[in-house]
Each structure stands twice: as C-alpha cells, then as structure tokens.
C-alpha cells in the first residue's frame, strides 16, 4: 500500500469524505506553493500538484492562467519534484502529480516515475492519456509504486467507465461536467445518476472534480462519492490573495 492508498483506507474506515486540493506548481511562485501545501494540510486529505503545460486543452481560463504564470517562472518537472522533496520534510500528505503527457514523455517515462518514487510522489493523473494508450505508463507506475488515477467522464458510458475503473490503483476521477476545468454554479444533471450506477460496478473510491466550488455541490453529492477535487476555485482565491482555509472551512461545512 502506498501513502495514498493508506489515506484512502483510513478515510473509508472513518467514513469521512476526502478533500483533494489542486495547486498549480509554481503559481504564483515556487515558495508560495510549498508554503500553501503546509498551510492547507490540516484542511485537505490529498494534494494534487499541477505540472504546468503550454497547451492545456482540458483546462478553462483559470488554470490556463496559472499554468502560464508558472511557466513564466520557469517551472519545469525538476522544480515540481523539488517542491515535493521540500514539503516531504514537513508533511506526509499524499501528493499526486497531475499533468499533460508531453512534458512527462519529454522527461523520459522511466526517469519520471523513478524520480517520482524517490521524491515521495504518491500518484499520477494524466488528463490527455486515455485508457487505450495507458498500458506502458501503468506498468511503470506499478513498478515504482505510484498510484495510477484514471479519469472517467459523463460521456464514457457505464461499460467503458467500468473498464477504466479496473485499471485504477487509487481512486477514480469522475468529471462533474462535460467540459473543461473551471468553477461553475451548476454541475451536470447526469452526474448523480451516473455516480449511482458506477458505484454498483466498482468498489474503488469515486472522486468528483471539475466545477466543484460551492458547499451545495458537496452536500448534494456526498452520498454518492468518496471525495472531492477542488482546483479552479482555489486558484482563483490565490489570484485574489484570499484565504484558502476560510474557503475550505466554508465549502466543507456539512461533511
């Protein structure tokens, strides 16, 4: 069991919902990212660290902006690893790297997973790597004890979603909307029926992300999933220099 699986197991035993916070590595700068992880550790169960990419096709304006700023700060994979290495001195919180395939491919797949293992990364999410292209990466993730977290979409259909669920070695990332990342007032009407059906097909934890930004979202969904991923809403707060902790307290007030 890796660090992430331990956390998931513990949450399940305690019947607690997980909160996973997405931060773009190096936005607004590397020091702030490290500081924020330590600050929000108590209010979050998992950290997703976004590897910035020049062409983030699954992301809305908020994360596009933070990625662009991080790239202007010369953030690359080495810097992402150094962030993980530094915070590992102070916290055991599971860290998942989330990034598009090209920078990872360019780094060298084996080198990427080996370095992830060495620095204390617990999982990987690659939004532009579908099931069909994932076998080599899953093999390497397994070899280096890194959890592989696939995405399932509302458009996947139950049969495909079940197939994808089987390859997960952590949780399953279910996108709450048919679209790109970004805070939204309303999530898709199809989401709850989809989560209910998927629940019957897999015992793996379901985490909902994309658009999560209000306490009502969490209240409505908490019966049907095991965790929530909050990204763009957090990045917007960082941009406005507002307290993330107050927001996390507010949004999780009923779980």
């Amino acid at each position: 069991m890796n660090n992430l699986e331990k956390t998931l197991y513990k949450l399940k035993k305690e019947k607690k919902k997980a909160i996973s916070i997405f931060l773009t590595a190096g936005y607004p700068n590397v020091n702030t990212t490290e500081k924020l992880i330590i600050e929000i550790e108590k209010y979050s169960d998992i950290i997703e660290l976004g590897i910035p990419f020049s062409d983030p096709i699954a992301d809305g304006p908020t994360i596009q902006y933070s990625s662009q700023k991080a790239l202007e700060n010369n953030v690359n994979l080495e810097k992402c690893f150094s962030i993980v290495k530094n915070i590992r001195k102070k916290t055991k919180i599971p860290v998942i790297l989330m990034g598009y395939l090209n920078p990872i491919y360019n780094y060298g797949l084996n080198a990427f997973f080996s370095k992830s293992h060495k620095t204390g990364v617990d999982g990987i999410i690659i939004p532009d790597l579908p099931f069909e292209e994932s076998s080599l990466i899953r093999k390497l993730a397994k070899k280096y004890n890194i959890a592989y977290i696939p995405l399932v979409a509302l458009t996947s259909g139950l049969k495909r979603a079940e197939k994808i669920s089987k390859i997960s070695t952590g949780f399953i990332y279910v996108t709450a909307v048919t679209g790109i990342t970004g805070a939204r007032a309303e999530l898709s009407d199809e989401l709850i029926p989809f989560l209910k059906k998927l629940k019957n097909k897999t015992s793996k934890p379901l985490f909902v992300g994309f658009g999560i930004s209000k306490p009502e979202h969490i209240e409505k969904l908490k019966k049907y999933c095991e965790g929530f991923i909050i990204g763009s809403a957090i990045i917007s707060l960082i941009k406005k220099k507002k307290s993330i902790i107050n927001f996390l307290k507010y949004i999780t007030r009923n779980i």
Partner: protein
Amino acid sequence: MLPDKNGYFGKFGGRYAPETLIPAIIELENFYKNIKTDKSFHAQLNYYLKNYAGRSTPLYFAKNISKIFSSKIYLKREDLCHTGSHKINNALGQALLAQKMGKTRIIAETGAGQHGVATATVCALLGIKCEIFMGYEDTKRQALNVYRMKILGANVIPVYSGSKTLKDAINEAMRDWVTNIKTTHYLIGSCVGPHPYPMIVRDFQSIIGKEARKQILEIEGHLPDYLLACVGGGSNSIGLFHPFYNDNNVKFIGVEAGGLGLSSGKHSATLEKGKIGILHGSKSFILQNKDGQVLETHSISAGLDYPGVGPEHSYYKSTKRAEYVSVTDKEAIYGFKLLSESEGIIPALESSHAIAYLSKIKNKIKNKTIIICLSGRGDKDVEYLKSR
C-alpha cells in the same frame, strides 16, 4: 495499410485526448469506417466535389517557369477550387459525414483562414451552424478571410491565448468540443489530431494525388520524378503524396516554413528542428523546448505557422520516404513573385514556399518532371504583403 487499427503510422499517431472526447472519437471512427464503403455517401460527395467545388482541378504545365529551371513543372491547381484552396475537399467530406452523424453544429480552427472559409462555405450549403476559432494574430494578417467567413454566416471567434495563432486556435476548438461534444463535430482542417482525424483528412485530400497521378500519366505517359508541396500541418502535401506512396521512384519533398531562418529560432520547421512528442491528440514531431513545452513559431504564412505536423509526415520522415526541407519568409516572397510574374498565377504564401524551393534544387531537377501542389490562391495575402 496505415494507420494500423490503433491509429499509428509506425510509432507516430495514436489517440491522446481527454476522456470526455474519446467515446465521440470512437463513434466518429466507426461511422467513418461504414461510410468508407457506402456508395451513396461517395456519390453525394463526388457530386459536390464536381459540381460545387469544381473538381477535377487541372494539372497545368507551367511552361515559363519550366523554361527557367530547364525542367517540366506541372502545377496541381488546387487554387482553382471553390473557396480558393484544397481545404474544400476535406471540409465537404467531413461536413457530409457530420450531417449523417446527426451533428447540428460544426466548429473548426483556421490559420490562414482558408480552412475556415471552406468550412463556413460548406456549412452555409448544408445549413449547419458554424463557429470558427482563429488566433487573434491571424485575424489581423488574414483579415479578408475573416470577412469572407462572416459573409458566409459563420461566427469567427478570435483566440487570445498563447501565441494567438493556429496552435492556440486548435486548443480553443478542442476546449469547445469537450464542452459541446453531443451536438458538435470538430472539423479539423489538417492531418493532425487524435486518430481517426489524420486518416480521415488524408483520405479526403488524397483526391489531389489521385487526380494528379492519372493526369500526369495521360499527359506524359510516365510518373513524375518529384512531388513538391508545402507542409504546415501537412494536409495538401499528404493529399498529393499518399496516392504515390508505392511509386518508389517518385521522390516526395515537403517544404516547411523557415521563417527568419532555422538558426534564428523564429520558424515553423517542425520536421527539421522538432523532437518527438504529443500535441493535439497524436504523437509526432513537435517544436518544443527542453522541458517539453511547445514553442511559439513564426512564419510569414499563417497556414504554415504551427509547431506540430501530421503523424503520417513524421512516419515518412523517419522511414525516409519523404524529404523535408524549408525556405525562409524572404524566399517564399520570391516564390510568390516568380509565379505571379512568370505564369500569371498569384499563389498563396503557403504554396509559395513550394515554388520557392525550386531554385534551391535547380541543379537536381534539370530535365526532370515535377508536380507542385499549388494548394491555394494568393488573393488573401495581397493586402498583407502590400502593408509590409
């Protein structure tokens, strides 16, 4: 026959896209497989290609430039197609496909505006709602085409992210597609994107090479020595090259945009200066920095200003089936002038790159037969060149 069932040309291609898109892409693939052998679909497409787009296009013996280079130079006149470029071939094919799939909205990216105009045209014809994504920089340098798209009833959406050119227009089109996947077909204009797009675009553009092959055999009684075409994403060149693939004595030369020169860093010569990576859905050569970030490119021609290239071209390069070279902005302008002055044909700046390359191989091509794909006409570029 390439691509293989997973969409690979050797090690290039594949399907790298967000999960939300994958089921729709698989649906497109299955649909396309069915219509490939559907006679009524092809009858309909051929009807429009002939009576609407004006095919077949002539294979014109350019006697004046032939004299200059002491060779036999033929121009495949895609500039004479309706809307002024080869882009209509693929736009018609994909739009008819989208209509059969029951899609009510079509989106497309455009660089030079030629693909945008072709898509807007076909959507007007078929009564389909149309939105075109175009980098803000390109809306300025190809303003005439923006206006044409608007006249045709399309909504043109300027893209302000990144380098504000073709790459960013594709990013934005993909984001729209992820959001509106149920109603919308993404009509990709080049042989890029996740499988099956590189194959679909190639197949619809292969009419260029099929016609040219038949025409040259009729006129000359033998195959050409060289095929010459410009390469951005690579749709006109793959359309010309592919039907000659098994004709081993026919040499393929793809001409990329050398911009201000390959050593300046300001160019779009992906196949010469790129590294293998993943962009816009497939594995291919990409212009990227040491961290795997995609580079901003430069070319005088908006249609070639792209840091990626179709995976089939990467395959042709790695197997040495084709040679890829480049000419600079300056040289392209020379090609533009040469064809205008000596043949009375004003070529698009994209196609001018292929023309310009003639002077770089003038010693090799003496007494040889060459077919150049004249992918588009240059009206759209006149205003920009005048303002320079």
